[in-house]
């Protein structure tokens, strides 16, 4: 992924995009901790 980003963007911008991706993934991981509970609510609704 990083090498693909480096094809189109400068090193600084590519690093910034990777950092944003890191933050987004962290949000997704925290959100996914509640996935099991969400599915249970959906099933019993």
């Amino acid at each position: 992924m990083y090498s693909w980003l480096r094809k189109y963007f400068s090193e600084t911008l590519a690093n910034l995009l990777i950092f944003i991706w890191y933050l987004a993934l962290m949000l997704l991981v925290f959100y996914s901790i509640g996935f099991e509970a969400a599915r249970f609510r959906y099933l019993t609704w």
Partner: protein
Amino acid sequence: MRLQVLFLAVGLLCCPLIWQVPLRWRARVMMLTTLVVFSIIAPLSVLLMLSVAAIQWLIWKNDYFGYWKVGVIVTILLPIVPMVFYKTAYQFHHGIIPLGLSYYAFRQVHAAFECYKGVMRKPSFAEYGQYLLFLPVILVGPIHRMPEFERSLRRQKWNASLFSEGLERILYGLVKVNFLGNFLFNFKLTELGLHTHHLALRLYLEIVGFTCNAYCQFAGYSDMAIGLGLVWGIRVMENFNAPFLATNMQEFWQRWHISLSSWCRDYVFQPLAALTRNRWLALVLAMLVLALWHEISIRYILWGSLQATLILLTVRCRTWMPTASKFINYHPLGRWVGRIWVFHLFAFSCVVIGYESMGSLRNSFNQLFW
């Protein structure tokens, strides 16, 4: 298994701290992070792991191998005994099993074997602790090897490419576990089965769903572990290599749960084959160890024996049916026939472990085939 996602979140949060500390402190920071998190969640497990590790280390340090190599036997058996005890006790009392016990016990046996063989130098207690207390793999594997881990630790340096590869692997893992495993194969496929009036078809869908879900869960959590390892700058061994693309059962077991099957090959199959000069017996025992590692129960003994039989038959078929064997292994169409065959063989063998009692298993097979 949900704990792995929690560990993943903690691992990602600690990532900036790990990359900020100087290299000479980094391994210790990684170990301390794991120690703090693991001690909060499972203090008994940490105590057990560190006590066994301390005794092993004392034996290595003092070179106390004694007459008849008692020290070697003690360092190898010491991690196994609590594992067997807790897993057997669980069958009768449904008590607790220390968190991650199966994984770190096998890592400790690996270290004991390698120290005895002289392949690996005897580690210091801090080095051994760093290997055992590595957060990404502590709960769900892979059962990584110490020499590779130490090499990776020595070469650890910031690499944006490796970091993004790690993030990518974590995303694949999340998709496999949450979307493919939980949603598609567990929830949607079961729902589809409930709308089917044909009983055999419903059971078939259940079996396919169970197998695909098991793969997605195992491979997904392994992806998360490998991904977090990469984010921390450590490359951990692969655990799954597209197992359902295998064309025979022998190849399947070289692609499914690689770290466990290679452990059984190195520390059960090879020593036993050398001792007994009977590779079939060694294979059966290695597959039984592999099965009993999951759970000590009759159903897993059956499952392990079944897997060993399937591998034996695969090898025998090369001499019994050379034309069919060549077609399945080399012809493009034959390879697809082989893949479908292997998937169904494995899926149907997993029925044995999918049911709690033998009675419900018998009923299901009756409904499927008769």
